[in-house]
């Protein structure tokens, strides 16, 4: 056992995994700083409801779970820096931060990345209107904001979030015009059998489905939103069937929510240079980790959904196991103690991990959509790059995402490709014979999101600028 090393640990992300890990790490006696961009910890699932949402949304597991987690965090020795974002990092893991108090740096430390997931989108004509939100976005607006995305909503995309969002719309008194699912009914039946291993999730799913059926909401499987047209009062949405493109269904709704599953947020891990691989089942890039979240860098761990999408129960277990493993790596506990502390969570993790992995193809059921997207459709929302532009660049020889970005500006805008990367990759693999690995991913660049120029410049005099010596004549 190495001699105990009590140097600081920084946890990025105060969701379920990050908060759990931070609390457990500080119980091992480590000085822990937890950084989160929101004003309260909880991440997306346990996001703290607004005072208004507390009144409008019926009490639920996410509210109580989040309150419990925030209570534990407050009672712990963890230094919590809320309203703070990481906008860059150095090779030695100095973190560049920006918060309400301005810019600051955190000196190199062991970093636990727990920055969760990002939603995946596939474009269709009209998807950039403000009347369309992400599916996870709609859920956050309702749960955290107690506010309906619209009085009538079409819920579209793939994965279990479809039914959760539809349920939330009804709960707040809205109407669901239709549910449009890229997955097939058979996929869900197959999953249903697996869910028996996870009775609590099963019970919830069954109750939502029963409620939606009772409300008489049309559910289209193997279908997708093929266009959204703005009307006087809202949207006219076209639903197409994947196996019978000529079959179309029209719905009028005030708004639509659409999302095609989640993917790990990898800007920070890619920027830190840890090894990643393409997970074929999930259809996304994820950092290569062991069960405890160790990566190819000894000073960087990844935990929760950031290490691969497995959902909230797994996130908590992963957070615990990562914290104990880090304590063991630091020589704070023996391997025997690690084994005994993590025996139960690791057993639960194995069982739930199997269930969650089965969910991945369902979340990625829209994977075939991006390759067939209409030429006129905007793929990159920020730079307004169309599918036709991307296809033409691919034909000119841009067969890798970074070359595609360099030649078309796709992914160069403020979101840094978070919204368009999956579509761009699917367009590459669908247009030429490159694999997702060959197509790669956009190089992560600083800042990770736009920074006010004055936050970098601050107050200064001309004489403060350290002008280097003049360039040669």
């Amino acid at each position, binding site marked *: 056992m190495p001699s105990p090393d009590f140097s600081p640990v920084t946890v990025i992300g105060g969701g379920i995994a990050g908060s759990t890990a931070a609390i457990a790490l500080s119980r091992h006696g480590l000085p822990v700083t937890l950084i989160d961009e929101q004003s309260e910890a909880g991440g997306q699932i346990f996001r703290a409801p607004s005072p208004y949402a507390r009144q409008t949304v019926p009490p639920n597991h996410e509210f109580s779970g989040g309150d419990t987690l925030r209570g534990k965090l407050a009672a712990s020795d963890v230094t919590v820096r809320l309203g703070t974002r990481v906008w860059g990092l150095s090779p030695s893991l100095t973190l560049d931060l920006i918060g309400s108090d301005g810019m600051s740096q955190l000196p190199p430390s062991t970093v636990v990345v727990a920055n969760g997931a*990002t939603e995946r989108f596939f474009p269709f004509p009209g998807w950039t209107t403000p009347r369309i939100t992400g599916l996870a976005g709609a859920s956050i607006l309702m749960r955290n904001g107690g506010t309906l995305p619209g009085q009538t909503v079409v819920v579209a995309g793939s994965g279990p979030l479809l039914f959760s969002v539809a349920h939330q719309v009804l709960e707040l008194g809205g109407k669901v015009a239709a549910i449009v699912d890229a997955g097939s009914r058979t996929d869900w039946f197959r999953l249903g059998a697996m869910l028996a291993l996870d009775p609590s999730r099963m019970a919830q799913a069954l109750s939502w489905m029963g409620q939606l059926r009772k409300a008489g909401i049309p559910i289209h499987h193997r279908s997708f939103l093929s266009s959204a047209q703005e009307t006087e009062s809202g949207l006219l949405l076209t639903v197409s069937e994947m196996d019978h493109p000529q079959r179309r269904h029209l719905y009028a709704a005030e708004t639509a929510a659409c999302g095609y599953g989640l993917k790990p947020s990898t800007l920070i891990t890619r920027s830190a240079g840890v090894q990643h691989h393409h997970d074929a089942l999930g259809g996304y890039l994820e950092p290569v980790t062991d069960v405890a979240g160790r990566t190819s860098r000894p000073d960087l761990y990844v935990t929760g959904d950031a290490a691969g999408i497995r959902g909230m129960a797994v996130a908590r277990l992963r957070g615990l196991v990562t914290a104990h493993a880090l304590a063991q790596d630091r020589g704070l506990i023996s391997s025997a103690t690690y084994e005994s502390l993590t025996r139960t969570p690791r057993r639960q993790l194995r069982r739930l991990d199997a269930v969650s992995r089965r969910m991945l193809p369902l979340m990625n059921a829209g994977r075939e959509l991006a390759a067939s997207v209409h030429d006129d459709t905007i793929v990159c929302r920020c730079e307004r790059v169309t599918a036709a532009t991307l296809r033409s660049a691919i034909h000119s020889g841009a067969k890798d995402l970074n070359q595609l970005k360099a030649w078309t500006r796709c992914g160069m805008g403020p979101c840094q490709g978070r919204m368009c990367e999956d579509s761009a990759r699917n367009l590459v693999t669908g247009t030429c014979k490159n694999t997702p690995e060959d197509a790669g991913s956009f190089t992560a660049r600083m800042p990770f999101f736009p920074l006010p120029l004055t936050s970098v410049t601050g107050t200064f005099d001309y004489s403060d600028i350290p002008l280097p010596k003049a360039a040669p004549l």
Partner: protein
Amino acid sequence: MSNGPSPVTFTYLTQTIEGFEGEPVAAALRRAGILELGRSGIDNSSRGAFCFMGSCQECRIRINGTVAYACKAPVFSNMTITPYAQS
């Protein structure tokens, strides 16, 4: 239990909006029927809150002149909100 939400008013461009202190600006604006939060600097098309988790950057607005994310910035009394885009 927390206290009930306190109703406040604020302005978006020239409109007076009612909301509750501490709720996300995007939620209050949406209930007031305001979905467009700005325009694209590239082609002037409408932009609004999309991802609600700080990724898409499309819900950025200015609160009393300072850039903020409507999906998470909390409402406070008498705040003045203008679109972010300058074009």
